[in-house]
């Protein structure tokens, strides 16, 4: 069994004056609702051209009700104003600026939940990974 652990530390001495903020959380990524660790993943690097909308992850199979996690880091260094829009099926959820990262679950049970990114202000360089409960490669073309 594989073991994948994701931890986060969020801190600020001055966001809430008089109350220093220290959040720490750690999770071992498990397959759907059980105690077996995730054993499948894909990861990579990509450049997204300015104003180009790219599909980062395809729709999940509608029958797959599993646990999934996505990690994306915007590794652009040219200009701090560059960002990508993070979208689920054409709906913009947020802006991931140069230097920012995100880690969140993915709804694989929705056949219309492809993950898309659109680059704004310039070419954005991203690093991404998806940790999966299940994964079937696309069928070969006949």
């Amino acid at each position: 069994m594989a073991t994948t652990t994701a931890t986060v530390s969020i801190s600020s001495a001055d966001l809430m004056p008089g109350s220093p903020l220290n959040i720490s959380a750690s999770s071992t990524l498990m397959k759907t609702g059980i105690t077996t660790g995730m054993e499948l993943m894909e990861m990579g690097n990509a450049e997204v051209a300015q104003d180009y909308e790219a599909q980062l992850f395809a729709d999940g199979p509608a029958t797959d009700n599993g646990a999934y996690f996505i990690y994306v880091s915007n590794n652009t260094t040219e200009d701090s104003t560059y960002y990508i829009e993070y979208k689920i099926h054409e709906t913009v959820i947020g802006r991931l600026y140069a230097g920012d990262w995100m880690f969140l679950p993915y709804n694989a049970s929705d056949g219309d939940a492809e993950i898309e990114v659109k680059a704004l202000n310039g070419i954005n360089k991203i690093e991404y990974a998806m940790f999966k409960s299940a994964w079937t490669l696309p069928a070969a073309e006949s």
Partner: protein
Amino acid sequence: MATTTATINVTSDILNSPITISKTMTMMKDANRTIGLDETTGLRTKKFTATTAAVIVEHDELTDDKAHKLYIRNASTSKANFFYVAYNTSAAAATTAETIGKLYGGDWMLMPYDGNTNITVASSTATETQYLEYMVFADGIVAAKG
């Protein structure tokens, strides 16, 4: 100006070559990438004893189209239960547009959030109490309307 940093570390032996991800970001404003986010809704904890969906972040409290960050953690321990998390106007959270995903016991998420639509959640169980911890790092909070 406030300085808020977030660091992620992921380690895994899924592949033959061990995976290590380590990144730190400083949360900055949309309009000026040299100024840190200096507002927050505060760190909140909510108890759920039913599967009824609920809005945990009301978008009209936040400025639209900004670089907010949203942190959520399922503070329960059972990996058998989860919360649906959605970016959705109404309180629906499961199989709706757009369900972000499922957060099982102990799982956490940190994502960018534009503040244009509510964030809703729904517990998967009514027989076991679940707790959710969440916080918005805000790039503009709208003053309460009288």
